[in-house]
């Protein structure tokens, strides 16, 4: 297998407009969650969304050609990584890939909007063209695992040597379509969400944008602090279209395959960045899966209590936090957890844990019964 390094990353969320700012906010225990009443049903929930002043800032830092919140959230982190990280975006050996579930869905229902404006591919190619990339971009839309599935697909194109760098961006937004949809499934929590806790009541939705650069070339400035994406896997429950597996066997299989491909044993993993959506069923299934994988004793967090569930970009955002944990030797605490609330008990950490960390695993599950796991480690 080729070695693949993460040579750049950027985040734009309610907790900050760079990866560093986001990581610092998480260590300080800040949350982007705010109370919000749903526009149609009136249901009261919490969500992590950009404030008026942040939206103004986003507007000023992007270009008018990227009209929607979604496109701005894709563009800004991309601009940051490309400018800061010495990446040749115009090279034919560079591919742009995107992760999102719903793209410009905030525009749906508006009479003046053309169908084309709702197309995920149209947004993607508008952005990759802006950066002068000659290749056709690729969008991965695999429900809530999109942010990991995009990295897993990128690895395939790097592995076969067709490209030496893949620039990944992802975004999803908080909007009436998504909020009312999750509310119709009775999946939203009326309070700030509590992943893995006894009293968890459901999901909080979040928005954000992320960019990550995967490359088989080590940048000029050396291999210090470089993190590798070591192995990954996707599986399907083949059980139910929206409910997770009853046994957790399939997510456990994804974790096992990802560790195998990485050449890592459960004993080598220093922490688990779980999905932890705070729904009854997801957290229960994940606890079963992590137990089956031999990872239940590992320090584990869910970041949903800080940033909500950012859907198609959650896998990217949470992976970038993993990468900063590896660089800084600190594991971010899980927010919203007090009492164990799953049959199989996990080691959910409630304080930031400063310790040497050399490898971690990021797990996710999504509608359509899909599961994904990715392992990161220090070089």
């Amino acid at each position, binding site marked *: 297998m080729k070695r693949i390094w993460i040579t750049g990353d950027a985040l734009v969320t309610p907790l900050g407009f760079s990866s560093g700012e986001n990581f610092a906010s998480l260590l300080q225990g800040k949350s982007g969650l705010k109370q919000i009443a749903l526009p149609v049903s009136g249901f009261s929930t919490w969500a992590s969304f950009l404030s008026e002043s942040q939206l103004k800032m986003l507007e000023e830092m992007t270009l008018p050609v990227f009209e929607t919140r979604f496109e701005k959230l894709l563009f800004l982190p991309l601009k940051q990584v490309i400018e800061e990280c010495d990446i040749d975006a115009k090279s034919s050996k560079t591919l742009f890939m995107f992760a999102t579930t719903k793209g410009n869905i905030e525009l749906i229902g508006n009479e003046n909007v053309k169908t084309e404006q709702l197309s995920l*591919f149209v947004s993607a190619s508008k952005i990759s063209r802006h950066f002068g990339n000659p290749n056709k971009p690729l*969008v991965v839309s*695999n429900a809530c695992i999109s942010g990991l599935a995009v990295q897993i697909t990128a690895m395939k194109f790097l592995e*076969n040597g067709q490209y030496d760098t893949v620039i990944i961006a992802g975004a999803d937004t908080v909007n009436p379509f998504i909020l009312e949809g999750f509310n119709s499934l009775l999946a939203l929590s009326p309070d700030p969400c509590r992943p893995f806790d006894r009293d968890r009541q459901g999901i909080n939705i979040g928005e954000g944008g992320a960019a990550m650069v995967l490359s088989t070339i080590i940048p000029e400035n050396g291999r210090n602090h470089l993190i590798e994406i070591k192995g990954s896997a996707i*599986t399907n429950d083949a059980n139910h279209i929206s409910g997770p597996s009853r046994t957790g066997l399939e997510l456990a299989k994804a974790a096992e395959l990802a560790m195998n491909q990485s050449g890592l044993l459960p004993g080598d993993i220093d922490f688990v960045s779980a999905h932890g959506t705070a729904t009854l069923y997801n957290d229960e299934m994940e606890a079963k899966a992590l137990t089956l994988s031999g990872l239940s004793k590992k320090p584990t967090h869910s970041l949903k209590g800080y940033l909500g569930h950012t859907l198609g970009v959650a896998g990217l955002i949470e992976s970038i936090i993993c990468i900063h944990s590896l660089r800084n030797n600190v594991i971010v605490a899980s927010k919203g957890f007090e009492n164990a609330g799953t049959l199989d008990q996990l080691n959910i950490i409630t304080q930031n844990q400063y310790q040497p960390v050399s490898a971690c695993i990021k797990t996710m599950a999504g509608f359509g019964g899909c599961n994904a796991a990715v392992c990161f480690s220090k070089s």
Partner: protein
Amino acid sequence: MEKRITGYCQLKNGKLFLNGKSLFEADIPVDEFLQKIVAEFEVKHPRFGKMDRLSKLGYTCAEILLKSLGNFKQYQPYEVSLVFANASSSLDTDFRFQKTLESIASPALFVYTLPNLVLAEICIKNGFKGENLFLVSDVPEANLFFEIINQMFAQNTTKACLAGWVEILGENYNCTLFAVEMPKDNSENQIEFNITNINKLFE
């Protein structure tokens, strides 16, 4: 053993083709067209009526193809992977769900506002637990399928793959699926797995 395309199926413009042979033709709206095919070819599913149109289209095409491929039953659950793509994601259903927001949001429709649900329906019916990917592009890209499928076979557990294009928006639809395996013996429908041949399937 080499990878081969062991079968392919297409539902497009009121026509059903299996391994290049025309099996059914009717110039009728897509919903009716699918109903007729489901009845004619005994495509069964207890929840078929509840699926969205993208899932109905992809599921029907997959079932007809899989029925013609006796060998697919021999694989273990994690040995079968799926990679599908389209241009419009789940937009056909997104519009339908959006309309329900004017009265009561429909949870049954909201679940299908993700394109990978068609993969889930095929996986649930057939017990496939391997890798699954849903990609969005403007047109079917043979190169993309070729590279991804090659890597799927090279890594992890994949021994067979169901792949293709499943697109629907209003009355415009096109589902073209193909199976890739490493067969021990050659049979009449097999063709070499390469970019030129994948491109021909999408014509």
